[in-house]
């Protein structure tokens, strides 16, 4: 069985957090789907709350603490990413954005990403499409078509209980559809190799020649 790593970034602020709950559901469904495809996966969960101070320090000082550096390496080196944020004031949270602000702009190039969000009412669900998806488009990540929004009411509705028996629009069905899309992308791609810019630098003759060609 080949193996992949799945990173889960949760931007929830409370503990326990419904954002983390959604992230865990999405990750678990993705793992099940991968397993059905004969692909094992290790999951690395990042609670951004734990790194809130380090993120601010990185924004101000320009370098990450060792713990944050390790976390960033884990996320950008994964084969797939589940990214979930609460929706605050019509968009993802500032903490969620801070994390994606401090990683290199090309670090998520081609990364399969499943987007999720939580909020008080379903009226905010399109924030996934008008705010969160463009962020990942900028990062040139490959977002899967289905993004999953969970409003508070979803946690009590039919179809949210994990038995898959709810209506087509129920939370469980949305989770399973999105997870299947992510699993398909992750399984279809070879394991991601971390790019090491220090291993093979662009030879200087090439740097000189690039100038002449332009």
């Amino acid at each position, binding site marked *: 069985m080949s193996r992949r790593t799945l990173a889960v970034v949760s931007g929830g602020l409370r503990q326990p957090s419904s954002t983390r709950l959604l992230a865990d559901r999405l990750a678990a469904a993705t793992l099940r789907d991968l397993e059905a495809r004969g692909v094992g996966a290790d999951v690395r969960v990042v609670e951004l709350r734990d790194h809130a101070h380090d993120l601010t320090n990185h924004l101000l000082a320009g370098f990450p603490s060792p713990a944050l550096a390790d976390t960033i390496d884990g996320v950008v080196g994964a084969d797939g990413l589940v990214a979930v944020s609460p929706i605050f004031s019509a968009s993802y949270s500032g903490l969620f954005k801070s994390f994606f602000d401090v990683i290199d702009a090309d670090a998520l190039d081609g990364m399969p990403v499943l987007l999720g969000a939580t909020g008080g009412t379903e009226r905010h669900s399109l924030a996934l499409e008008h705010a969160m998806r463009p962020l990942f488009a900028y990062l040139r990540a490959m977002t899967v078509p289905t993004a999953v929004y969970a409003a508070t009411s979803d946690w009590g509705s039919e179809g949210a209980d994990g038995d898959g028996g709810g209506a087509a629009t129920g939370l469980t069905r949305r989770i399973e559809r999105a997870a299947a899309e992510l699993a398909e992308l992750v399984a279809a791609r070879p394991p991601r190799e971390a790019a090491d810019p220090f291993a093979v*630098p662009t030879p200087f003759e090439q740097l000189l020649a690039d100038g002449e060609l332009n």
Partner: protein
Amino acid sequence: MQFGIFTVGDVTTDPTTGRTPTEHERIKATVEIAKKADEVGLDVFATGEHHNPPFIASAPTTTLAYIGAQTKRIILSTATTLITTTDPVLIAENYAKLQHLTDGRVDLMMGRGNTGPVYPWFGKDIREGIALAVENYALLHRLWREDVVDWKGRFRTPLQGFTSTPRPLDGVPPFVWHGSIRSPEIAEQAAYYGDGFFHNNIFWPMSHTQQMVNLYRRRFEHYGHGPADTAIVGLGGQVFMRKNSQDAVREFRPYFDVAPVYGHGPSLEEFTEQTPLTVGSPQQVIDRYATMRDHVGHYQRQLFLMDHAGLPLNTVLEQIEILGTEVVPVLRTEMAAGRPAHVPDAPTHESLVAAAGGKRDATVTAVDDVTGRVAEETADETTAAESLR
């Protein structure tokens, strides 16, 4: 091993008094600081280059020439010279002139600059940063080594039969360092030319510095300049010292907490753990910096940032005194211990002249090699011909 100080020339309010020095005071203070560094036996004074407030670091060769006239021994350098936005022809002229005026006490560190708007202010595009550094330096390198240069590139107007004047002192260009914090391309550039590589690690963890220096060393060897451990490496540093370490922490913390660049971010304790900043007794500084070579190998130049964040001039002068009299003499001994004989010192004008086989007057008189006529005659004839039309 060379030890010295580098300054960014920031005009910053002293947070303990609320007083902001004037530009004039800060410019004059910079001269005092450099003179003090010379007096206490430090080897290098380097100034940054900025073209915006709150900095007084524009016109670096003016500052360095003035300091050069009032010092005897100290090497005058830059940290950094903006190779991206400064015309390489002007760099060639200004620093060759500085070489002559100071009898060779000059080297330079090339950098791309970290102030975005500087690029458009000088008609350049920040997205071309690496390409500008590569092309501009390629031209500068030739201007100092070839008396007559024909040149065409992307970023400045072409040159035909151009001679940069004055020619480098004794026919030997100033030694060049390339400074970069994050770009492997610049480490590659330094390695290609066999120039020095300076990693200003003062805001970075040692693990990152190690990666950059290792890359440079490996590629230095690849390009045939000698074994990797003979490559010329420099590091940044940042210290604040008092006899008792608690006093140092107490006195420096108010400056640290609101300092430009890292203020309001990591705590002093986090920052000292994660970067080379050392706040404590002179012995603590010695202990910390004696371990730098464990990370990057035996290196050639250690510069300290001493005069930023609004620290008053008197405090800075005291700090340089402690550095020069208590710390550096011990570090010199420690760094010499176990240093293999084949690891070179940083090149100086004298060592470069010796390597070139001795002094050579490089003066170019304006005689045309082909016709044997001097430029003035040609110009006179042209004028005469035009007046006949």
